[in-house]
């Protein structure tokens, strides 16, 4: 790809723009006439056809303008040279977006007067960020296509729910246990699929997710079946609960403030924020250790891995186990946040959503996955009021995505080692924090 672009005169460019934008205008007209230009009104006796020429004109003009902007933007991109453009974009993105996002995430619940709804939405998005990062270990790093990730989420959630229900365990006691159980199930899934790859692996993991859900649904004596489990305790803050009644032993009572549901939401928010950061930190660390490197090498070429002395079986199992462990943590958190869980929360659509987040984010990229979770979960929830337009925005986002970043938001991969900078990496890692 050469950076040299043959000089094009201004007149040629103008003609090209006019021709291109004119074509788009005609196309827009053809599409918009039935969709926008005509309108059926309910009438006393039947339907009447109405016309909306003004709205139609606005739509067409907008389409033409958008096309011109795209053309200008594309020309600029070609001019700078694609590679240089991309490198510059990624570098600046990494430099500014990460701390900005991180700062935003830390401060969100502290914004004075912020509605509980937004903090709660933050909790939801952060849960998916964590799930995305967890699945990213399996799919993005180790290259094992897992369509049943929700199974581990369910194992984590039910581990806590059952232990709390039958033995009155608390959230903080169950959190490590949930991760452990999920990791064990990860190994259980890993063994039978060691020899599978690609499509076949995808099918078996998909089935695994369904099996777990069906077992939970049908083992009514233990799990309550489709009725789910109620009254799962919320987490406590050093022994203080968040009951709205106030008084001794509650958070508000201890600190002498008015009880407010926001206190619990904020607390939950910081818990999941911390868990997500932990996931990210562990992933970044592991990428620089032999285990994580072996995952990546496995994704690239299994035969080469074998001939280099990598134990492929253990490598796959650890990827499944560690990915599953974070799914289990997230599940445990989900249970404590919801108070109530049922098998309905763990359907295939959850696996698909998390996988979409990973793929959309550019498999293997931490920042990309976080951005994708915001786009996939946060924006649709914010647009709930405009819910009739949700699909429109979603379609638009997908189209833009295909044009602009066909390989995911952040498709470049930073090497986990760079000559002469090896000593620096640890400190760099800390300052990066977020990836």
């Amino acid at each position, binding site marked *: 790809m050469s950076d040299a672009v043959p000089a094009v005169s201004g007149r040629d460019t103008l003609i090209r723009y006019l021709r291109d934008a004119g074509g788009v205008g005609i196309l827009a007209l053809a599409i918009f006439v039935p969709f926008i230009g005509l309108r059926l009104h309910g009438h006393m006796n039947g339907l009447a056809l109405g016309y909306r020429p003004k709205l139609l004109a606005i739509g067409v003009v907008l389409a033409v303008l958008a096309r011109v902007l795209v053309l200008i933007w594309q020309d600029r991109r070609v001019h700078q040279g694609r590679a240089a453009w991309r490198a510059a974009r990624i570098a600046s993105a990494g430099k500014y977006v990460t701390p900005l996002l991180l700062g935003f995430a830390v401060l969100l619940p502290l914004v004075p007067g912020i509605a509980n709804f937004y903090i709660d939405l933050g909790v939801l998005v952060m849960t998916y960020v964590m799930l995305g990062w967890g699945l990213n270990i399996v799919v993005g790093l180790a290259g094992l296509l897992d369509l049943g990730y929700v199974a581990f989420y369910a194992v984590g959630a039910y581990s806590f729910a059952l232990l709390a229900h039958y033995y009155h365990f608390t959230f903080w006691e169950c959190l490590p246990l949930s991760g452990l159980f999920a990791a064990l199930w990860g190994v259980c899934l890993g063994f039978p699929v060691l020899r599978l790859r690609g499509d076949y692996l995808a099918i078996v993991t998909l089935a695994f997710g369904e099996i777990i859900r069906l077992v939970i649904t049908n083992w009514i004596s233990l799990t309550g079946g489709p009725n789910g489990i109620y009254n799962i305790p919320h987490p406590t803050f050093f022994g203080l609960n968040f009951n709205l009644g106030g008084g001794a032993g509650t958070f508000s009572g201890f600190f002498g403030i008015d009880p407010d549901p926001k206190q619990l939401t904020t607390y939950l928010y910081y818990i999941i924020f911390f868990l997500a950061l932990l996931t990210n930190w562990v992933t970044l660390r592991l990428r620089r250790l032999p285990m994580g490197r*072996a995952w*990546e090498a496995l994704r690239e070429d299994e*035969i080469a891995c*074998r*001939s280099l*002395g990598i134990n492929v079986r253990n490598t796959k199992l650890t990827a499944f186990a560690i990915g599953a462990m974070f799914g289990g943590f997230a599940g445990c958190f989900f249970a404590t946040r919801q108070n109530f869980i049922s098998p309905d929360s763990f359907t295939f659509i959850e696996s698909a959503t998390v996988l979409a987040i990973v793929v959309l984010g550019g498999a293997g990229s931490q920042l990309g996955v976080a951005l994708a979770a915001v786009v996939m979960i946060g924006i649709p929830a914010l647009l709930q009021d405009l819910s009739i337009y949700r699909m429109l925005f979603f379609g638009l986002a997908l189209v833009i995505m295909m044009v602009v970043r066909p390989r995911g938001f952040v498709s470049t*991969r930073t090497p986990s*080692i*760079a000559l002469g900078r090896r000593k620096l990496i640890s400190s760099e890692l800390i300052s990066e924090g977020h990836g």
Partner: protein
Amino acid sequence: MSTMLSLSGVTAFYGQIQALRGIDLTVEKGEIVTLIGANGAGKSTLMMTICGNPRARTGSIIYQGEDITQCAMHDIARKRIAHAPEGRRIFPRMSVEENLLMGAQVVKFADYDKQLALMFDLFPRLKERINQRGGTLSGGEQQMLAIARALMSKPDLLMLDEPSLGLAPLVVKQIFGAIRQLNRELGLTVLLVEQNAYQALRLAHRGYVLVNGAITMQGGGAELLARPEIKAAYLEGGH
């Protein structure tokens, strides 16, 4: 001289198909031994069988006095047998240095820098491209990387499967020069599979000819080169 590797009566199968029919082969320490044969003769299979995949069904493989016939693949690699499989198989999305690092699985971290410096001596091209992604290297550079990656483990025995595949004559010369240098200076033992029989036999101390999964001829490199059957079957139009 003591024996580095010896195979006796080794057979291997892919399902029902027999790919190796009773192979007897030895490689002495410090030797370069080449394996030549037509496409599909079983050269790659022989190397893979030494590495444990497919496993030898009968016969034994003795490496440095130890029977490795039943060892797991990754254990065999840890015994300092380096195998650069057919078709380079570098890690395309990882940088050159990461590729080399993956080759150093079995060496101590202290040795890593020394090995790296050695590789850069051998293939200065790789040093210039240290941060480039493996997949964007040229074919010749990728082959150098594949060899260097295999060498990172400080092997006692290096097995190369068609290192000259698809390379310009000058690059082939460079790579063969590197193999010779490693053999002379470090006493590295090399088992080499080659289509380029002329070059390979000139480089090697000894050679084996494989036909249909069985060894039909063996002898010193120069001796094999001089044989009329070899000339007719593998060298016509070659060089």
